């Protein structure tokens, strides 16, 4: 059986068979979309049917309360327990979904106790009290201790309900909830819900539910308030020039940071929930009227198609929505800087923020965007270009230096000037290993220092540096295990890999470096070329949400002067062609109004120079 599978895999790899399912994920407008729709409508109708089925049962239980009420509870009980056991199953989930808030406060309380496994569950609080100082209507509030702001609950929910209310005569029982919402509770976000599903979802996310006797609906007051990290400085994308704000783990703070940066009513924040067991909030932000609608559609399609238990971090989401999961180069740009995310939104890209992650995902991205830093635009063009050239050199050094060293010392000694080759061979005189073993040993040691540096507890962090630099470098050389020139090679390579601004892509190049070294050890420069060729073709065939990764040069499309080097900001008149934005123009031909008078001809005639070409 296993052999059969392997054979099938091999045949698939060698030949080409279109795997409908996989392609469907990548392609736009294929069948799975209609299937989804069908599914959605089916569940909706199912729900309705079920609700209708339950309704007569409910009225029945209300009319003759005692014996049937108990029966009904037990029935609900069954529903809930089934639901708890197999929450992943959509069918069963409907059991909880379709439960309606009961008119009887006791039934509601019993249901909630079942749902939240009270009294086993210790941080769920149900506080019972009387509302309306002149009468004795029973009520209780439900909230989760720790994720709600106590002060808000006390001041804005309990206090007005218990102290400040006098019920006017004309309010009918059925309208109590409306009345409370409109007249009594201060909370700025108050909603009325009548299904447990809605109520529980809000309560799980810091809301406070107010259940009132003889009301078949309940109020949910927004009282979120947990201990959160304040907005801090960026950890991995530091700049000297530019803002020092970073996203944090709270979704609302992050969307607010972007709102603050882009003061435009066309900026849309669409919210989705993914994950069956943990409904994680995801915000998709873009600028309507600018972004290509089919891009937004595709982003939403990919996010909504995810069917999994739990998506807890942007890194997990990234792996669920990227085009080529097995390629080395990332296809989603990750940033922790609101200013960077904002500038991408204004370019016509889509930003995805997930609750609990201090990183925003930006799609589509290109290889060149991955190589830029926000500071490139804050610095003057000449400095920015200098830094960018440095970075390009760093990439080549990071990928190829160990390989080149191995190739030159193993196969192409003739190209080294005589003095240098004498120095190298003298230094290698005492080393018992072939170059490739030496290189792999040191590169591996370097990677280990790096990994240890990340994982090591802060207190002993300094030790790692000393151990790494001193023991591995100095001692290895004096013990005659590696040659001193190799230490320089490894150090330069390591330094260069730190100069790559994107964390993911620096990972990619670190891995690729080992492959290049192995190729160089077997075939010299020819091997390195083979590796480079595979890397290039691989990258030219990759796409990020429909945009080729190497655009705008592979394929060549129209783009402003901002690819490897960048021109002055005023010369970037158009947004990149590959984004296919609804509005191509970023600024007119003459964006610096003050240079107009210098253009003698126009100044004399007093005409405005032509703004568009």
């Amino acid at each position: 059986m296993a052999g059969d599978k392997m054979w099938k895999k091999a045949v698939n790899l060698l030949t080409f068979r279109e795997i409908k399912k996989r392609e469907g994920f990548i392609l736009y407008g294929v069948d799975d979309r209609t299937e989804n729709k069908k599914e959605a409508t089916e569940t909706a109708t199912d729900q309705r049917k079920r609700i209708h089925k339950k309704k007569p049962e409910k009225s029945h239980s209300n009319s003759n309360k005692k014996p049937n009420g108990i029966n009904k509870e037990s029935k609900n009980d069954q529903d809930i327990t089934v639901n708890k056991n197999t929450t992943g199953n959509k069918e069963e989930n409907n059991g909880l979904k379709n439960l309606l808030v009961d008119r009887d406060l006791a039934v509601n309380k019993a249901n909630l106790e079942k749902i939240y496994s009270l009294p086993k569950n210790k941080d769920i609080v149900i506080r019972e009290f009387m509302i309306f100082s002149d009468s004795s209507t029973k009520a209780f509030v439900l909230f989760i201790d720790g994720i709600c702001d106590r002060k808000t609950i006390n001041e804005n929910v309990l206090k007005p309900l218990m102290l400040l209310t006098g019920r006017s005569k004309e309010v009918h029982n059925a309208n109590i909830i409306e009345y409370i919402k409109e007249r009594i509770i201060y909370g700025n976000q108050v909603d009325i819900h009548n299904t447990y599903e809605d109520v529980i979802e809000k309560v799980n996310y810091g809301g406070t539910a107010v259940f009132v006797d003889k009301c078949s609906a309940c109020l949910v007051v927004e009282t979120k308030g947990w201990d959160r990290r304040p907005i801090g400085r960026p950890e991995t994308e530091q700049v000297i020039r530019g803002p020092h704000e970073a996203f944090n783990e709270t979704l609302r703070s992050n969307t607010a940071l972007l709102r603050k940066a882009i003061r435009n009513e066309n900026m849309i924040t669409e919210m989705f929930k993914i994950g069956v067991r943990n409904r994680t909030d995801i915000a998709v932000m873009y600028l309507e009227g600018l972004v290509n609608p089919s891009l937004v559609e595709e982003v939403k399609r990919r996010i909504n198609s995810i069917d999994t238990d739990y998506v807890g971090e942007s890194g997990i989401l990234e792996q669920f929505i990227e085009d080529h999961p097995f390629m080395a180069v990332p296809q989603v740009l990750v940033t922790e800087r609101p200013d960077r995310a904002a500038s991408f939104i204004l370019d016509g890209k889509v930003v995805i923020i997930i609750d609990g992650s201090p990183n925003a995902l930006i799609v589509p991205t290109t290889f060149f965007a991955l190589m830029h830093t926000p500071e490139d635009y804050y610095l003057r063009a000449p400095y920015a270009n200098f830094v960018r050239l440095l970075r390009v050199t760093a990439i080549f050094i990071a990928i190829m230096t160990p390989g080149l060293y191995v190739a030159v010392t193993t196969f192409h000694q003739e190209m080294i000037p005589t003095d240098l080759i004498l120095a190298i061979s003298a230094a290698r005189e005492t080393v018992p290993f072939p170059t490739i073993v030496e290189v792999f040993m040191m590169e591996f040691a370097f990677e280990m220092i790096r990994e240890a540096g990340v994982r090591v507890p802060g207190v002993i962090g300094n030790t790692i540096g000393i151990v790494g630099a001193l023991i591995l470098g100095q001692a290895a050389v004096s013990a005659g295990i590696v040659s001193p020139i190799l230490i320089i090679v490894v150090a330069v390579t390591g330094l260069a890999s730190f100069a790559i601004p994107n964390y993911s892509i620096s990972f990619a190049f670190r891995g690729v470096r080992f492959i290049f070294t192995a190729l160089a050890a077997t075939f010299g420069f020819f091997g390195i070329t083979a590796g480079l060729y595979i890397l290039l073709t691989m990258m030219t065939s990759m796409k990020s949400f429909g945009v080729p990764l190497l655009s705008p040069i592979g394929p060549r499309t129209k783009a402003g002067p901002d690819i490897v080097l960048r021109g002055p900001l005023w010369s970037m008149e158009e947004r990149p062609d590959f984004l296919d934005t609804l509005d191509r123009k970023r600024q007119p031909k003459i964006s610096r109004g003050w240079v107009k008078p210098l253009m003698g001809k126009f100044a004399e005639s007093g005409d405005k120079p032509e703004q568009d070409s």
Partner: protein
Amino acid sequence: MINLNRTVKLGYSEAAALVMLMMGAKAYLGYPRMMAQFGATAGWLIVLAGGVISLGLWLGIAALLSRFPGKSLMDINVSVLGQYAGLVVNVLLFLYIMATTSLLLRLFSEAVILTALPEVPISAVNLLYLIPVFFAVHLGLEAISRSAYISVPFILVGTLAVVLAMYPYWDAKQLLPLLGSGLWPLLKNSLLNISAFSEVVALAILVPFFSFDAKITKKVGVFCIAFVTVSLVIITVVYLMVFPMPGALENLAPFYQMSRTIYLGRFFQRLESVFILFWTFTAFLRLSAGVMISAVVLQRTLKIPYYRPLLPALAVLMYSLALTPADLLQAVEVDNILRHDYGWVVTFFIPLVIWIIALWRKKGNAHAQENRQG
């Protein structure tokens, strides 16, 4: 540009880069030596004349293409000649491309052995050429053509660097006598030398993948031929200037010899290894393009939906064909005969004959261009 469909479309830049590399790659093999052999000191004139004649012939092929907008050469063959004769011509085209690509694989492998890895067996080098080529062709025409477009500037810079670094050895007197071994051999070899530009027919084969019309295809072809002619003339001229005539016939890898001769002070010498990066990269691209195009021709000829199932077979075929010549000299000889002496028959002569037949039998739409514009 957001393109969520998987239809393969090439822009004119990519197409031009691909064809330029296909034509120009021979400069890294024995081409300058061959020119010295055929034209002696006037070898560069053969290149020039061959380029000019090819330009004229390409205009004929372009006229054929504009009669059948959006159709590849293979489809045109079938619709002009009928099913069976068309099939024969298409199979001939496939065999020619396959055989020449295999020969190139052999020659490039021999060049690697000659210049960098003298002790590696030819089969191993062949294999290391084939694996990335197979990978690239599996990824498709887009990947190859985009890689070509990205690489062209680097390859040009590398070539130009060698040519300029030879400056201390330039000696214009070596180009005399201007007409080499005489007018008649020059003319004859110029006519044969159109084979050097025969790769331009790749444009006619790839028509269905182009995002532009026949008019631009014509321009792309003209540009490619002109650009490659100039480049090859420069390389040949420099080669003839640096290596005096009898010696010029002896270099198996002229470009390698040139890069080896570089001496710019004590530090910048023996740089041939650096230039291995440039020409082996070109070789990878040239071979991938060759395999890709033979796969496309075969796919269209056999009328099958995908080309990828053909790749393992093509790879094995190429590998064994490349290893068939007994030694390097035989490979060079076969290459001379197949590509230089008779290459033009398949790539220029047959399409032009088909053009004439199409004109005669009034096939295709004579006013396709005008209609589209109108």
